[in-house]
């Protein structure tokens, strides 16, 4: 196009120009060269901008851009009143590169002797770090770190971002690394439920290691955002104004628990104290809402402080939900509920209870020596007669008993939402031998967790409907919406009438009338009617593979107040040393917890003391 366009004009003027510029050949060659250069440049342009554009721009971006993540804030845990049990915050780890610092500073000093040499400079830095960080980083620690002969060293523990900034702004040779931290204001309180989370170097964020922190990690963690910035080649110096957010960080959800941190504190302290006095190997306690099944407190005698650098070795687990045990006489409530529900006996039905009973090939006696005594059915529970219970259980029959066991939720996990929950062991009906049915009604030969045990009594307290316990109340999304956890379906265990009857009968356990004493009179609380049941179960002796005569599980389950239940409390002491008062029964501990509950929740007094029930006909 270009050539064709110019040719005729050039042709016409050739004569005129030839005089000035010389030969026409020169002109043609010049033009040709220019055209070739233009075509080459055009071709290169096409290649760079067209064919290789994508590859080149990608390469450029790779050299220039740095993708970094914006850390998402981990959700917090709160108790039922909104008290924070665990939360996240930011901190910084100061670090130095001592070897490089020494070489560079000595070089500087050689160039300009007015500048301090490496030793002086390090001392100066250490002094400043201590001055800014205070007691958190003693000068000695900073000095020790700076004078280490290594390429990289961390200086002291984590510090606040503001402190780190002050140090790094003044001394560019000191670096800071981002760290997220997890704090537990209440320390070991509720740690068995919450578990623990700590910084993970691999993931570059706080990750859950134990308990709910671990099982709810996905909910709590949130999603990290992404940030792209242009950096000068070969360094991490960000070119100002090039930082752009590709995806914002989405903070994790907060989790609201049903726990009451004050109650948890009290229960944990009392339980620890009691277990220590009783010389128990371990102890667990649970407090449930009588109607909703919400867990107000779930405690073990051993806990750990998730704030500390080293956890454990004791108290890291949550035996209250993971370790089943044989409940002993607490299990008699199943026989009682079944017998009342099926009209086999009435509370005041009198049974002639002998000193022992033979079921299949096993002879079972009572905890106290007696001949044949006339006990009411209430008395059988109140005095915790094995013989009487087995007599009634025989009338109830193994099938109906087995059915009741399942309806009370034994042999299956409650689904509380805590990791590692055990459902206990109940032998399948088809595997029952004659002796099985001699054991189960009195709480031997099957196992349950303290949570399941409390769950049985919750069914009695809640008019016969068992509501599986829950510990997570709601999830609070980052946008503030509160998503309550679905309430589990209640399971009808017995009729309301049966539940009332059994509940009233269980008041006899804490009865303290002359000649009509229950086994758990220490659980009684002035002004309130209390229903409950004591339990003692023999542990297996690993030597003889038989029931031990010296190690027991001491249990107690009860409700407060019996006339209008608000709370159900389950207690278990594992292998207390015999001889102490505390090792004999957990009833006093129940009393303490019930007293605190009544006071804390301002439970109205019962209309009057519980009527004295006849346990043994005289």
């Amino acid at each position, binding site marked *: 196009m270009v050539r064709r366009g110019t040719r005729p004009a050039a042709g016409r003027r050739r004569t005129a120009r030839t005089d000035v510029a010389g030969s026409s050949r020169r002109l043609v060659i010049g033009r040709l060269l220019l055209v070739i250069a233009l075509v080459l440049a055009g071709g290169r342009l096409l290649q760079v901008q067209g064919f290789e554009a994508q590859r080149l721009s990608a390469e450029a971006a790779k050299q220039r851009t740095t993708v970094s993540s914006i850390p998402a804030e981990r959700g917090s845990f709160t108790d039922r009143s909104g008290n924070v049990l665990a*939360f996240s915050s930011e901190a910084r780890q100061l670090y130095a590169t001592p070897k490089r610092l020494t070489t560079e500073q000595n070089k500087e000093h050689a160039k300009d002797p007015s500048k301090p040499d490496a030793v002086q400079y390090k001392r100066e830095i250490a002094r400043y770090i201590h001055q800014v960080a205070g007691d958190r980083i003693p000068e000695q620690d900073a000095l020790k770190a700076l004078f280490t002969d290594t390429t990289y060293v961390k200086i002291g523990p984590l510090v*606040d971002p*503001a402190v780190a900034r002050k140090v790094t702004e003044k001394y560019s040779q000191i670096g800071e690394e981002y760290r997220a931290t997890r*704090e537990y*204001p209440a320390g070991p309180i509720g740690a068995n439920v919450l578990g623990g989370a700590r910084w993970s170097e691999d993931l570059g964020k706080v990750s859950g290691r134990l308990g709910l922190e671990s099982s709810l990690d996905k909910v709590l963690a949130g999603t990290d955002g992404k940030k792209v910035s242009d950096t000068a080649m070969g360094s991490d110096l960000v070119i100002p104004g090039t930082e752009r957010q590709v995806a914002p960080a989405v903070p994790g959800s907060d989790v609201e628990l049903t726990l009451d*941190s004050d109650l948890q504190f009290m229960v944990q302290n009392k339980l620890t104290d009691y277990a220590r006095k009783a010389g128990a190997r371990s102890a667990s306690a649970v407090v449930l809402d009588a109607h909703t099944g919400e867990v107000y407190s779930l405690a073990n005698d051993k806990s750990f402080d998730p*704030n500390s*650098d080293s956890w454990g070795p004791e108290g890291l687990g949550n035996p209250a939900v993971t370790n089943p045990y044989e409940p002993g006489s607490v299990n008699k409530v199943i026989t009682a509920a079944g017998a009342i529900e099926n009209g086999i006996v009435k509370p005041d039905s009198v049974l002639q209870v002998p000193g022992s009973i033979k079921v299949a090939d096993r002879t079972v006696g009572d905890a106290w020596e007696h001949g044949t005594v006339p006990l009411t059915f209430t008395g059988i529970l109140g005095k915790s007669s094995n013989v009487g219970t087995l007599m009634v259980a025989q009338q109830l029959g193994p099938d109906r008993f087995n059915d009741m066991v399942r309806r009370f939720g034994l042999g299956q996990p409650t689904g509380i939402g805590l990791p590692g929950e055990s459902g206990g062991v109940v032998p399948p009906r088809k595997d029952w031998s004659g002796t099985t049915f001699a054991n189960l009604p009195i709480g031997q030969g099957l196992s349950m967790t303290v949570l399941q045990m409390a769950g049985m009594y919750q069914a009695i307290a809640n008019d016969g409907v068992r509501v599986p316990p829950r510990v997570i109340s709601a999830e609070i999304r980052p946008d503030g919406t509160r998503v309550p956890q679905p309430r589990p379906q209640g399971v009808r265990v017995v009729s309301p009438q049966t539940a009332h009857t059994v509940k009233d009968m269980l008041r006899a356990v804490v009865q303290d009338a002359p000649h009509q004493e229950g086994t758990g009179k220490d659980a009684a609380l*002035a002004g309130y009617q209390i229903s409950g049941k004591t339990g003692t179960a023999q542990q297996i002796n690993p030597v003889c593979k038989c029931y031990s005569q010296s190690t027991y599980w001491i249990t107690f389950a009860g409700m407060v107040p019996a006339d209008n239940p608000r709370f159900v409390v389950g207690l278990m002491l594992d292998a207390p040393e015999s001889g102490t008062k505390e090792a004999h029964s957990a009833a006093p501990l129940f009393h*303490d917890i019930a007293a605190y509950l009544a006071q804390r929740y301002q439970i109205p007094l019962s209309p009057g003391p519980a009527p004295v029930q006849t346990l043994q006909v005289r």
Partner: protein
Amino acid sequence: MTAPARANKAAARTGTAGKTANSGAATGTREDTAKKKTATKTRGSRTAAAERAYTRREERRDRAETPERRPRTQRSAAEQRQSRPLRLNAVRPKARQLQAKVVTSRVPMVVGVMALLGGGLVATLSLSIATVGNSYRLQESGKQVTALNEQRETLVREVSNMDSTPALQRKAAELGMVPPPGPPAHLLVHPDGRVDVIGQPQEAVAPKPPAPPAPPATSPAVPPQQVRPPEPHPVPQRQAATIPAVEGR
């Protein structure tokens, strides 16, 4: 194209004749007459458009004083063409020339474009200065936000730590508060005013003050401003849990 071109000559002649005949008459009248002529002549060899073009050329010739100005006036709008002779007729010929020059020159447009460019430049500059200034302010504000956020976090942390049950228990113990040994008693007021005491009230007993005042338990983890001066009479009634160490984070 050749036919109307040839016809042009005749038309030009006729046009000139028509023009001279109507010399001194008002434009409107001239147009009318021209149109009439066009109407009569078109029947011969000219198209209507060509006729109008010739008429316009005649008009222009009338108005234009200098021959070199003609091509420019050709580009002017029709309205200007119509009104100019009337205005120019009122002023002296020299002034008339100058005015015509001013009106028809490119200067206004050039000045206008320059002003626009200049204005644009100034606006761009001022905007960019404002942007840079704002970016500095933004940076400053960002720093302030970060600092305030950090301060907020520190305060929230302090509140959470001091608000926790173990910390409250410890503080209460420090203040000398002692839990009662047993559950509280209740006063039951009957409708007749009679008052029953339910339960046995038990007095809380203050513990004996320890002989040497225990040194305050200061965790190295607690920032210096949180370290309280030692209580005059520390009452370690209970071994309460200490405030969680910050280093355990």
